[in-house]
């Protein structure tokens, strides 16, 4: 179907109003790196599209102990911020330069695996999503946002407007393993953040990408770390159990067999980066 209307709202209220008016048949697009390839191939034929590039949702600011990332802030903007270094690293290893200039942080949540790398880092950081609808805004932990493969908690009359990331001094680390060094889909991505209490881990977050229907937490692995000193045995145990936390798939990039094994390897490597003998990456 030839697109008959393309809306470019200049504000959030205007965007919400267009969404109410057109309902679920309106395709909402931000950077275009997910939707445009489908449209260009004739795989998506929307009648009406709303582009959010000019809706004023692209600011990144640090307030109230949180980094507030507008949903349409680009990955280049995320790479340019220095409040949360692990997010820089996640942005740096996603897409190519021209793609990062277009792709948005909010859009990254909707990128089907093996994409969606930035969302993996956000998950490890306990980010929240802010969803705006006709009756106002609601906040939801990112961990609760995903409901299945390509499905999520966003209601038909809502827009994702912001990612809110608590500022923390917890050390965090990030690894993306792909078939190439850059501009590559992931075999697996791993983000981890640890809270220490003295010389023991009080709380842990391990998020995995490209090994499930959406970015997932490796909850058993997280549990296994709590109370340990993150010695080699604890790392090995957590890495081993992380393979049970994931539900890898086979695609052109890797088989499920290989992905599962790489989960163990790269969870291990991320945790080694955070182990006490290394300089903690504390922020």
């Amino acid at each position, binding site marked *: 179907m030839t697109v008959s209307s393309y809306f470019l709202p200049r504000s959030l209220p205007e965007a919400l109003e267009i969404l109410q008016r057109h309902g*679920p048949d309106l395709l909402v697009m931000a950077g275009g790196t997910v939707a445009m390839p489908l449209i260009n191939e004739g795989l998506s*034929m929307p009648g009406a599209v709303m582009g959010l590039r000019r809706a004023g949702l692209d600011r990144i600011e640090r307030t109230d102990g949180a980094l507030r990332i507008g949903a349409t802030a680009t990955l280049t903007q995320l790479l340019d911020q220095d409040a949360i270094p692990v997010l820089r690293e996640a942005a740096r290893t996603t897409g190519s330069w021209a793609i990062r200039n277009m792709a948005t942080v909010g859009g990254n949540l909707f990128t089907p695996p093996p994409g969606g790398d930035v969302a993996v880092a956000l998950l490890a950081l306990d980010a929240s999503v802010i969803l705006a609808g006709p009756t106002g805004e609601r906040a939801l932990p990112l961990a609760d946002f995903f409901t299945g493969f390509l*499905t999520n908690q966003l209601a038909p009359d809502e827009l994702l407007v912001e990612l809110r990331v608590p500022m923390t001094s917890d050390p965090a680390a990030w690894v993306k393993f792909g078939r190439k060094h850059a501009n590559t889909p992931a075999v697996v991505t791993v983000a981890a953040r640890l809270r220490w209490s003295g010389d023991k881990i009080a709380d842990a977050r391990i998020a995995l990408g490209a090994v499930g229907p959406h970015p997932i937490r490796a909850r058993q692995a997280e549990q296994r770390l709590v109370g340990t000193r993150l010695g080699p045995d604890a790392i090995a145990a957590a890495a081993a159990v992380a393979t049970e936390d994931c539900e890898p798939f086979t695609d052109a990039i890797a088989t499920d067999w290989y992905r599962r094994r790489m989960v163990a390897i790269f969870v291990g490597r991320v945790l080694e980066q955070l182990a006490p003998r290394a300089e903690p990456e504390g922020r």
Partner: protein
Amino acid sequence: MNLSGSRTLDAPREAVFAAICDPATLLAVIPGCRAIERTSETEYRGEIALRLPGIVGTYRTVVRMADADPPGYGRLEGEVVGSLGSIHGHASFRLTDADGRTTVDYDGQAVIGGPLARLDSRFIEGLAGSLIGQGLGNLNTRLQRHPPAGASGDQSPTIKETPA
């Protein structure tokens, strides 16, 4: 495309079977379902709107209960047609009693046509699995909340409902 799965619901078999035949329940539990109509004893027609990353669309569906042995077995045939192509298929489900709860085992095959067929089958299968999971989850919530009064199902010949 092959799809199969299993899930246990918190209601007896009779209630589950009745719910599966009830348009009002189907409207409430099928993700994105905007309208459903029971056009005969065995046929349902509906409209499902799906809002996926990069792809939005409305799909017309026709489903027939081709064979049924309440409350334990049913076989559905049908098609889903939209701007992105079509899915023709059939699925059978078996309801087994599990101490007053019900285990639903389903198994289906579908042929995908049109642009949808060009997508990686992982996407269609993953999405279908995800939607079925969501639908059964919704059904379970609804069964817990509103246990159906009778076990015989909705006998009204044709009802049409649209979402409020």
